[in-house]
């Protein structure tokens, strides 16, 4: 069966463009492959590959200081890498727009993904993020639009969490 709508990364990309995002920081991630490719191919977007996700929190703050909008793409494990750096966004009310792909929650083969994956939502909420959980392709555009508005309109942390059901399980044997 292959009726899954796999075009949802394009909805995220369209929302980044419509939201005027000019810098996109990311740590390479399978679930974000298409969105990263589209950002890299876009002349108006500066794609910034990071060594760790917390760099992207600081990058977004610097972008906003300079009058630009940034977004941060990561996998669920990256949330844990960001927790202290979120203090920068919280203390100074920097906009922080994040699109987070989930691991460790649905048909996960790798148990090492579970400890962080299982606490992503509460960790983000403790860090005062607005969290938008997405399970189906139909929900993606609406959630991303609200997150863009919340981040840049309200100068807040906003996270769209893309569930593993949406992304599909990682294929381990080919």
């Amino acid at each position: 069966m292959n009726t899954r709508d796999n075009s949802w990364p394009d909805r995220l990309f369209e929302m980044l463009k419509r939201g005027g995002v000019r810098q996109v920081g990311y740590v390479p991630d399978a679930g974000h492959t298409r969105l990263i490719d589209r950002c890299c191919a876009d002349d108006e977007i500066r794609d910034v590959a990071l060594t760790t996700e917390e760099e992207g929190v600081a990058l977004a703050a610097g972008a906003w200081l300079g009058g630009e909008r940034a977004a941060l793409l990561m996998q669920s494990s990256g949330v844990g890498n960001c927790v202290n750096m979120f203090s920068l966004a919280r203390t100074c009310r920097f906009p922080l727009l994040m699109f987070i792909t989930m691991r460790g929650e649905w048909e996960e083969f790798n148990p090492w993904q579970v400890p962080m994956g299982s606490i992503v939502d509460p960790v983000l909420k403790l860090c005062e993020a607005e969290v938008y959980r997405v399970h189906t392709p139909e929900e993606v555009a609406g959630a991303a639009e609200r997150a863009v508005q919340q981040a840049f309109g309200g100068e807040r942390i906003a996270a769209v969490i893309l569930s593993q059901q949406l992304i599909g399980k990682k294929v381990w044997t080919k």
Partner: protein
Amino acid sequence: MRLERRAAMAVLLADRGDDLLVIPGLGSTAWDAAAAGDNDRNFYLWGAMGGAAMIGLGLALAQPKRRVAVITGDGEMLMGLGSLATIGIQRPRNLAVIVFDNGVYGETGMQPSHTQSGVDLIGVAGACGIGTCLDVRDEEALADLARRLKDLGETLFARVLIAAEEPPRVLPLRDGVALKERFRTAIGVKP
């Protein structure tokens, strides 16, 4: 020979011009920058350890016509060492990362940092692809760095060897929202 930190900061920020934007890293370099004269175009860090260079990168990319100087300590730089790799592949022409290296964590009681045991930040920056990497150990080299800072042609990294001392603290504004808003207003981005 090691330079005196307050005097070194004063040399770097003298006649800075309105187009120099400064990110002082948390701790002593923030006090040094405040002592050199408060400026709306300083975004002092009171936290976010390891993030100074990346804030500078985001700012430099957003403001390509202005110069950006991150001036931070060796401990702060060590916590964000990966950001030198990230900057090394972006290489904005208008970004300078300057590390005041005294080999100790001054704010927490002068415990030794990795640089005291031989970790070479200049070597790291060069290996990450940053084009100009300077070792500033005397007044002459400091004056040269100050001149280069006035007219950046490529991404620059400088290690400024300073003495481990604790001059009296000069504390800048610490309200993060106010620091952000006054910075953005000063450079004329949307209030």
